[in-house]
């Protein structure tokens, strides 16, 4: 298959970027999108053009490192990560536009590589259960209803890729944050810190410059882990309760 690529090239965070046109020739239909870029990069190297820089690691859809906006959609057509997108999904001869994940809170580093450390800082603000190794009771001492464990798992499946914020017209990270708030908040082990957690994580999210949710649901549409937007409503409720409790001095 042959494609025409329009690829975002930008040398560094402070330089100007622009779309460059490259031809991708003789790409097997079985190649993944990233393998197509590998082929293009080999070709560019032979032509003395610096290869396109892009993030990827596990290439099996779980590490959350790949982060391309393809024809305007984070992770491109279909549901899954960029690395799990295969070229047979495109038409032969098609023009494909490739840009980085775009969100104000994900500063661009080079070409298609963005810095998503803001997500790490949000987790550091409260996305954990305070517990030290060696202090845990027997694993079966607290039964957890299957339906609760399953729901927690639905939320915990988030891969932290950032597509939600990149897809959102407000650049909101609320799907990501709410998934972690739900995962830990649903489990009995996480409940003691629920109020602190939601307040601290939401405040950090605001501090990082992410926008608010105004119910576009673009995040849910692009999420490769299938996290439902209903977790955002759940988080909003937890946040309201926690902030009222905080204002009357009964928590945090």
């Amino acid at each position, binding site marked *: 298959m042959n494609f025409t690529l329009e690829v975002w090239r930008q040398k560094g965070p402070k330089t100007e970027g622009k779309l460059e046109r490259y031809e991708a020739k003789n790409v097997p239909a079985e190649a993944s999108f990233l*393998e197509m870029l590998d082929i293009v990069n*080999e070709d560019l190297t032979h032509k003395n053009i610096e290869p396109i820089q892009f993030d990827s690691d596990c290439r*099996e859809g779980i590490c959350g490192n790949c982060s391309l906006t393809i024809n305007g959609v984070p992770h491109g057509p279909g549901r*899954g990560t960029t690395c799990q997108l295969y070229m047979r999904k495109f038409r032969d001869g098609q023009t494909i536009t490739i840009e980085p994940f775009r969100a104000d809170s994900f500063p661009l580093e080079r070409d298609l590589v963005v810095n998503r450390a803001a997500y790490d800082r949000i987790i550091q603000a409260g996305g954990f259960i305070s517990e030290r190794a060696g202090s845990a009771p027997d694993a079966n001492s607290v*039964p957890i209803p299957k339906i609760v464990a399953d729901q927690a798992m639905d939320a915990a499946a988030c891969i932290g890729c950032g597509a939600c914020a990149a897809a959102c017209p407000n650049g909101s990270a609320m799907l990501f944050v709410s998934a972690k708030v739900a995962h830990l908040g649903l489990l009995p082990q996480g409940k003691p810190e629920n109020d602190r957690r939601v307040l601290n994580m939401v405040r950090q999210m605001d501090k990082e410059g992410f926008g608010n949710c105004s119910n576009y649901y673009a995040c849910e549409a692009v999420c490769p882990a299938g996290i439902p937007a209903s977790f955002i409503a759940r988080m909003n409720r937890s946040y309201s309760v926690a902030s009222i409790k905080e204002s009357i001095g009964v928590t945090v």
Partner: protein
Amino acid sequence: MTLDAKIPAGPLDKKWTSFKNTAKLVNPANKRKFEIIIVGSGLAGAAAAATLGEQGYRVKCFCYQDSPRRAHSIAAQGGINAAKNYQNDGDSVYRLFYDTIKGGDFRAREANVHRLAEVSSLIIDQCVAQGVPFAREYGGLLDNRSFGGAQVSRTFYARGQTGQQLLLGAYAALSHQIALGSVKMFPKTEMMDLVLVDGHAKGIVVRDMVTGEITSHAGDAVLLCTGGYGNVFYLSTNARGCNVTATYRAFKRGALFANPCYTQIHPTCIPVSGDYQSKLTLMSESLRNDGRVWVPKRKEDCGKAPQDIPEDARDYYLERKYPSYGNLAPRDISSRSAKEVCDDGRGVGPGGLGVYLDFSAAIKRLGKHVIEERYGNLFEMYHNITGEDAYERPMRIYPAVHYTMGGLWVDYNLMSNIPGLHVLGEANFSDHGANRLGASALMQGLADGYFVIPNTIGDYMAGQFGKQVDPKAPAFAEAVQSVKDRVAKLMSIKGTRTVDSFHRELGHIMWDKCGMARNKEGLEEALQRIPKLREEFWSNLKLLGGPNEINMELERAGRVADFLEFGELMCLDALNRNESCGGHFRTEYQTPDGEALRNDDEYAYVAAWKYEGEGKAPTLIKEPLVYEQVKLSTRSYK
């Protein structure tokens, strides 16, 4: 040089307890005075960083990914073993210990494996407490499944994403410590060298992968938690970035590399479809419960569509060769048999490197809906990657490199022969012998990080009071300079071949000569070809861009340069081991019916290799494996 594994005295099941009772301690106020460098943030690294941070040490943790949450532990699917005996099916610490030793084909160290089995239960408690959403039964208690190499159900799991959930648990604990200031995290920072001061590991040299800056960090101890070296084969189920650089650099600084030839090939992966391919994807082994493995009997039929090949022209070779285990023969046997039929020219699909895994009999017997219920997500994944519908035509599968049992040599304390240098998880050699059982990699990574190193590191740290290393010691500047020189050298070659083309060629050599089946002739050929390829690499590599910016080709070039040396060490080790055991199959050493033939009299030892300098052959140092508890026996699957 003799190796002291520092195994505590006393009966096997009392060793760990007596060790803990007498181990040296560091009081909380003094822990604050020590700084520990941890390289890698997977299960072993993140768990160690979080736990040592909790204990009060000052920790610096480094990873090459943009976030510690992306380490490749995240991709593990199946589960984690623990001797909880929640199923009341007769499991015990001893059984988990014995299964692991036997699964490792009697090439692992007894005391380490017993300790692993002892702490396995604590890991599950720890993970549940930190919010890992393991699968549960309706009564709210934890569910278990069974896995290969065991007759009990001791595997805990979180859907098909157990590695992800365990890693996110460790990452959460690590994030908590980062917030508290006890751990400082350095993402996108790659270790390039180890720094020794007076023979002790006291620091590392790193490259900032965004700015290209090369600096050193000093510490009181260094922990390498950098995973395995499966990417020496180019194609593997490992992540693109997985590499041997950290452990290989330590090897070149004097750390012994143990059993590098022990690699695990997983039988059920999606086959290679072309030269462009960057990685291989695992399909859960559970598929072999309902799928029948076959290839055409005649080479001429290989190009035909599978439905056009009549039943009597098919060779169900696993059922034929291993009637009692059939399609559920163990990993190493299944992998090797697939290779044999493909070598015979009867492989199917592009390049003839594939065998059919056929569900038509099961669909006819059980109905499509049952197969869909059991394996729906796997069929979907297969369809997404290959574009083929496995309900309509058989899947094509082929073995792929998955895990490496070899690693840096460590003693009972997880310390290498270099004082202060500790090695955890897949990066060390100690627990899996010549073959790892399913669901045991996650167990070992977390055991080392949460429960072993926090207890054993005191032994070294207690002797380090008042020996704070000076970050201005000449060893640091020298190591930084040598890394800078190496980067400059890579950039200056200006040849015509890309990094990946060298890596692919090395991978082909390793796979053909040091893969599923090895022999003297092939290994000797590889030992001729690798140095030539390395020479060409250093004279004909083409790298564009600069060293002081994001340059992923440069990153890969540094790793491939190390693989080009390390591959030779693997072949050397494979050539030395004149026996077949676990993942190491030498065609000269097999029983008349084609099974692995171990040689316990001559090879019941750990082969630890010592670097002797550029252009010199490494020397072999043996640690005899002494079995006090277990009686060596032969595995049979007929």
